[in-house]
């Protein structure tokens, strides 16, 4: 018995539900909180005028004035700047192990960052000496660490006897006699230590020494990692994520070797909890975005979530809207690029995909290869892709509209060709189009399920049925075959799989609208579709940004600008650092302007 109350509630008024606002600044339409209070100025002096009634001179905009984001997160930014200074000044290590630990914890954002391990140990000396082994989990060989570092130092060294016999320098002894690693280097400053740790080495700090030992333990995941299946490119890395969470994070870390790359673990679900890794750049990503991602993940109560697609449905803003609100990728380089823009990636244990949030329409239409080829080709490819989107969504609907309603719109010669081709077809255009579109959907679905060895048979059957037999039997016209084929090719050109699925479904809606009201139906459909898309948000970020709402546009949203022109990160993300590179990034062109002012900005 259906619950009629639920259906009836669809027609009743619902008070609008308020969602927390994640982003507020950076957008053109931001109404600043600093605006004057909402009191009538009727009885007060006019704003912008002096007491004598003359207009005040306009105050020039201050160079280097703080943005809203800089003001809001000034503490976080100050901490980041202190770390940057410490590293760039090559500050030396301290004698105290605790001091070194504290600094390293700040640099690697521990305990927030679960990737970096600060392993405390006691050397087997008399009295015991405290030490600290620092490394990044996932990119180091743990067996090697256990056998060649921890075991000799803690159990097998005989340090206690040796230290008792002679007053020997423990640091030298450890370096020369106790660690059977093939490569050992002495590190004297934090910058070098951090660099080595990020490269997969383990660095050993000993209490009382302002030096550390960098030990070769790197174990990058490579080969065995398979090439991408869905997001294949010709140029660019040929690695894809695996089912191992640690390997996936290590693959990203292989691209971004920075201490501010943070991985946090969040338990999701209720019965069979799932481990999710939230990865972001601590000095770039908006803290409110990170918080919102963790909040949504942590608050999910479901029995069983095992795939990014299921997770996506649990965390997306608007489940009824016709577009995906997260970007799913199997490519470490794409995730790394997104993180460097200030986005957040979510990995799931046992799943070879990463969920990148927030997603916008323009990011869904981009392919990683756009950035790897020279800009004219990248731009051209993108234009072709948008044309393909138009064809995939609207071409069959236009065919129906023109055949059924607007024959006068096409030139006479073309009209005669179409009419001649349709002369022997007994069906109205809508039936003809639906037969072909549904046949194609069937073929596609069968192609996914069929075993690989008999896949070619399906291709032959499909080509014969769709291409030849249907035309010969006068079920469809040859022109429709071209329409359906071009539409299918257009659909496959859309880079994001989920987005192309939504286009496939929406195509049928447009066909129906065209059947009822021709081109007017299509245009009204486009208007509603646009209205829905511009009011859609992904984790608080407008889906159609930076076009609607209008924000400051870079050179990489619709067309692909040159790499050296892409100086700023997308401002609709409100990143902590907006500038990606200085105004003059190709210093070799201006060797005399090496210390350019643009660096300071």
């Amino acid at each position, binding site marked *: 018995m259906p619950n009629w109350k639920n259906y009836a509630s669809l027609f009743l*008024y619902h*008070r*609008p539900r*308020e*969602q*927390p*606002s*994640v*982003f*507020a600044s950076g*957008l*053109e*339409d*931001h*109404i600043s909180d600093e*605006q*004057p209070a*909402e*009191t*009538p*100025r*009727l*009885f007060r002096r006019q704003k912008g005028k002096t007491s004598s009634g003359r207009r005040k001179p306009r105050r020039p905009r201050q160079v280097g004035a703080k943005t809203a984001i800089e003001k809001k997160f000034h503490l976080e930014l100050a901490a980041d700047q202190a770390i940057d200074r410490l590293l760039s000044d090559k500050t030396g290590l301290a004698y105290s192990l605790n001091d070194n630990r504290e600094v390293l914890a700040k640099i690697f954002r521990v305990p927030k960052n679960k990737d970096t391990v600060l392993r405390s140990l006691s050397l087997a000396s008399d009295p015991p000496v405290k030490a600290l082994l620092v490394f990044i989990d996932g990119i180091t060989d743990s067996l090697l660490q256990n056998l060649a570092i921890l075991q000799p130092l803690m159990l097998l060294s005989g340090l206690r006897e040796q230290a008792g016999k002679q007053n020997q320098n423990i640091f030298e002894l450890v370096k020369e006699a106790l660690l059977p690693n093939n490569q050992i280097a002495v590190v004297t400053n934090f910058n070098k230590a951090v660099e080595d740790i990020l490269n997969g080495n383990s660095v050993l700090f000993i209490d009382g020494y302002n030096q550390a030992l960098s030990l070769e333990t790197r174990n990058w995941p490579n080969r065995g990692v398979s090439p991408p299946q869905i997001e294949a490119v010709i140029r660019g890395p040929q690695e894809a994520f695996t089912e191992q969470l640690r390997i996936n994070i290590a693959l990203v870390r292989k691209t971004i070797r920075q201490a501010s790359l943070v991985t946090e673990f969040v338990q999701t679900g209720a019965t069979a909890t799932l481990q999710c890794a939230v990865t972001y750049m601590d000095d770039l990503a908006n803290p409110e975005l990170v918080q919102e991602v963790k909040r949504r993940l942590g608050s999910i109560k479901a029995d069983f979530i095992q795939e990014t697609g299921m997770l996506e449905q649990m965390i997306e*803003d608007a489940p009824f809207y016709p577009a995906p609100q997260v970007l799913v990728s199997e490519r470490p380089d794409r995730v790394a690029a997104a993180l460097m823009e200030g986005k957040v990636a979510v990995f799931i244990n046992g799943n070879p995909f990463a969920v990148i949030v927030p997603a916008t329409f323009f990011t869904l239409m981009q392919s990683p290869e756009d950035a790897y080829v020279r800009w004219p080709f990248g731009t051209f490819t993108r234009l072709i892709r948008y044309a393909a989107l138009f064809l995939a969504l609207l071409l069959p609907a236009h065919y129906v509209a023109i055949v059924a*309603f*607007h024959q*006068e*719109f096409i*030139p006479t010669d073309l009209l005669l060709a179409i009419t001649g081709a349709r002369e022997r077809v007994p069906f109205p255009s809508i039936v003809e189009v639906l037969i072909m579109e549904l046949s194609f959907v069937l073929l596609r679905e069968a192609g996914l399920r069929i075993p690989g060895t008999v896949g070619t048979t399906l291709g032959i059957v499909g080509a014969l049925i769709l291409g030849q037999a249907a035309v010969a039997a006068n079920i469809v016209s040859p022109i429709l075959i071209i329409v359906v084929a071009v539409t299918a090719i257009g659909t496959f050109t859309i880079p994001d799989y989920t987005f192309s699925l939504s286009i496939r479904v929406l195509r049928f809606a447009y066909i129906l609208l065209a059947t*009822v*009201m*021709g*081109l*007017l*139906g299509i*245009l*009204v459909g486009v*208007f*509603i579709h*646009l*209205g*829905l898309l*511009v*009011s859609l*948000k992904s984790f*608080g*970020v*407008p889906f*159609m940004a930076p*076009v*609607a*709402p*209008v924000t400051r546009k870079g050179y990489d949203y619709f067309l692909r600008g040159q790499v050296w022109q892409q100086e700023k990160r997308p401002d609709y993300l409100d990143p902590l650092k907006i500038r990606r590179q200085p105004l003059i990034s190709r210093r070799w062109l201006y060797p005399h302007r090496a210390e350019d002012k643009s660096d300071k900005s």
Partner: protein
Amino acid sequence: MSQQKPVVGESEAVTLLLTFLSYKVFLAYGVFIYSEGLNASWIIPLINTLLGLLGVLLLISLLSKFPGQDLVKIGEVLSGPYLNMLFVLFYLFIFLLSGGLVLRLAAERMAVGFFVDTPISLTTFFFIAGALVVSYLGLEAVARTARFLLGILIITAMAMVIFTIPFWQFHALYPLWGSGPWGLLKGAIKNSGDYVQILFLGVIYPFIPRDRLKAIGIKSVLFASFFMFLYILVPLLIFTYPSVTELAMPSIEMARIINLGRFGQRLEVIFLPVWVFSNLITLSIALYASAAVFARAFKLNDYRPFVLSSAVFILVIASLPENVSQAIYYHYKYLTQYSLSALALILLILHSVAWIRGKEESKG
């Protein structure tokens, strides 16, 4: 950005006002202007621009005294609930009538040009359904959709003008003064209501950047006046006076005569998006504006319950004229003629009350 209070940027606000002011250029704009200005009808939109600027400056000066408050609330503060109810009725009259007549004229245009055998009620239903959904989604949705489509609208509108250049006959402009300076001024004052939709600025004022209020108002009027001027001048150049006075919808005739060789004929389909989208945006604005005025008059926070009722009003108004000629006449009689003067009168009353109360306050 998932906040309750909508925020509309400067360019979005300008787009909304520009579309709401200039929707008429794609419908029956100029039908009465040509018979008042004769060969010099193109001067009337120029004089009208000044009147429009005066109107918008009057509105801006009132709004800027009440930061963040809309015209309905300001009216209530200054004139009390009873007198303000009359003002509110005027605002509703403007928005609902604009919406209703746009709906009727757009549907008539589709019926004449593209859907000869389709019942006009179905065309009307499609238009109102599209506008209803988007206006229900909110002011942000309307503004952003309009801003997204602005490029297409401007390019297509300009293409329609540029493609007709081979048909321009400059002798059509002579005699230069047409019906004479007094006749032109009279025509301009009579048609000053073309700018009455600037009233919408008073509805969206709480949601736009306050420091950009003046820029938004002035830019909107100037951009709209450019298109009004163009769409009076170009039909005059193409069809010449007095033939131009016989056209009910000059822009559709402009599109029909475009001919780009053997393959580029019957190109009016290319201009279909501009007609449909501009009318849909205008309808959405009218729906939102009337629902918002209703909500504020009844002191409700949410405008959405009134969207459907506004749609019913608009449909009823659209059904009132018996034919397209009557719809054009109604538009001229009740909107174009003198309605800006009525708005100016309301604004002057509110200004006077504000001035008197301000004086009393300072004395006190």
